[in-house]
């Protein structure tokens, strides 16, 4: 059985370990079956060899402060991985290391078996067309219109005619629910939700294999957040894409995640503790034995409030 699911075995094993910790035979079986079903239901997962992203012992420091400390995980093809954690725990830094915008101080990030930072400029440019990155503030180019923004990756990397490009741009914008007349507007004229959707359309325009979302729902109203979640799901059903979503929105986690990683800020960890404090399915998260995980899921400040009180008391003394 196991050899058939070698691709997803790591994922399965992590669940198994989690359940073994709980010591619950039934849960172990459940997890085994659900994991198996999820893996079997994704043909792309075992059709190609090797994980699409592997993060190996990555350390990133800003000045003297460690932001990421010994991060290790792999993302099999077709999986939607959601990375959660409070602000400042290094989620965005992780995304930027995956795409090669940041070079880790130690360790390496492999994309499809190759280290991005060791590639030549030309090869790196070619590899980057296989990514789609949705930025937190959309990061549309102010000086270009919406149409030019979405067309940008195609103009850079393909020889398609203007007419073909225009058609693709309109199709992509329609997919994210934006009308045709939007292409002549400048980013400043659009609302936050519309800008995010344009950002998504721009990231999708070259049919990427790996989509990276940096806090896709932050700063949006609940309705627009749900629209974005739905778009992430639709993207996955329409294209054979692997996604890594960084968020602190538990609704997003419940709606889109196949697997959840939870990061913890290094400043609050002891030197020996691992920075990834949860790796498993979104459903299991609530039942985690780690109070840091359950508090995050329920949005309870808990110890943090006590710390604040202690600090203010210490000051007044």
């Amino acid at each position: 059985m196991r050899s058939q699911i070698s691709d997803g075995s790591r994922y399965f094993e992590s669940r198994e370990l989690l359940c073994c910790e709980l010591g619950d035979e039934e849960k172990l079986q459940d997890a085994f079956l659900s994991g198996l079903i999820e893996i079997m239901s994704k043909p792309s997962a075992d059709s190609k060899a090797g994980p699409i992203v592997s993060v190996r012992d990555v350390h990133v420091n800003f000045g003297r402060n460690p932001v990421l400390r010994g991060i290790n995980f792999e993302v099999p093809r077709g999986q939607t991985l959601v990375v959660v954690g409070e602000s400042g725990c290094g989620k965005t830094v992780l995304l930027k290391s995956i795409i090669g915008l940041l070079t880790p101080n130690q360790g390496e990030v492999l994309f499809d078996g190759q280290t991005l930072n060791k590639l030549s400029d030309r090869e790196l440019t070619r590899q980057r067309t296989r990514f789609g990155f949705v930025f937190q503030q959309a990061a549309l180019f102010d000086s270009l219109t919406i149409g030019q923004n979405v067309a940008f990756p195609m103009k850079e990397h393909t020889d398609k005619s203007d007419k073909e490009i225009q058609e693709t741009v309109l199709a992509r914008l329609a997919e994210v629910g934006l009308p045709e007349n939007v292409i002549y507007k400048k980013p400043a004229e659009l609302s936050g939700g519309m800008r995010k959707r344009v950002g998504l359309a721009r990231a999708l325009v070259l049919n990427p294999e790996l989509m990276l979302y940096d806090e896709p729902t932050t700063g949006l109203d609940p309705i627009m957040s749900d629209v974005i979640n739905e778009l992430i799901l639709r993207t996955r059903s329409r294209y054979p894409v692997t996604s890594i979503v960084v968020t602190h929105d538990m609704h997003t986690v419940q709606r889109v995640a196949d697997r959840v990683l939870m990061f913890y800020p290094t400043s609050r960890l002891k030197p020996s503790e691992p920075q990834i404090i949860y790796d498993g399915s979104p459903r299991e998260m609530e039942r985690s034995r780690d109070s840091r995980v359950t508090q995050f899921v329920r949005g309870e400040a808990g110890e943090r409030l006590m710390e604040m009180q202690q600090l203010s008391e210490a000051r007044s003394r």
Partner: protein
Amino acid sequence: MATASNTDRVRRGGFHPIEAVTGAISDVGGAVVDWITALGDVILFALRTLAWLTTRLPRKETLLPSFYTIGVESLPVVALTGTFIGMVLAVQSYDTFRFLNLETRLGAVINLSLVRELGPVLAATMLAGRVGSAMAAELGTMRVTEQIDALTSMGANPIHYLVVPRFLGCLILIPMLTVMADFMGVVGGYFYSVIILGIDSHHYWDNSKKFVGNFDVFSGMAKSLAFGAAIALISCHRGFNSRPGAEGVGRAATTAFVYSFVVILILDLFLNIGINALYSTLWPEGGQQFI
């Protein structure tokens, strides 16, 4: 380190001369290291820009808008300041030359200082103030709002896409702006000397022709090339390394102008030394005939 030693000092409530001296030494050392790092960073940035310049030029759509903002939009202000500096030169030197009965030499003085010195430096200063700080602010905003990261993530090189057009714009257009400043300065100087002060027009031009040669005009334009390159590189580098927030972008814009201006003056000194050496090797018997 500094904050730790400060709190120690507060706690112990005394002044420790040894700590103060070692602290000062380490501060100076830190500043020197920071300075050398920053200089190395600018040089690397310049080399990367030059490397892109030799491999692939940007498309017309990205070149033309930056040429327009750098060249066309700078013309009026360069022309205006040029005119006034020409008139100011006439006002300042008239009394002295009149005392020596050499009023007609005014043409030579004004026009020579314009084409050799004031035209290029003035055009460069205006470009640094008008275009340099705007470029730093624009690129700084792009850095802060992750637009530069977005470019990279889409497989476009930010230096190729953002810096090379601005660099080319400054490099190609600053000699033309210099010519404009020179020309308007000559017009302004002529207007004040001949029309207002009543100096004889024929002798004014005759003296100008005698003392201002092609070498003077072209050496001024050659200098301006170096200024243009420095402005573009410094301003883009400041923008690329902008700190977050409105304050960071504001600082990027002001430091872009200040650093550009300082570098323009330093370059000016050394280029003048070089140009004089070149002149005396080309025309050993000629030298400076004036005065």
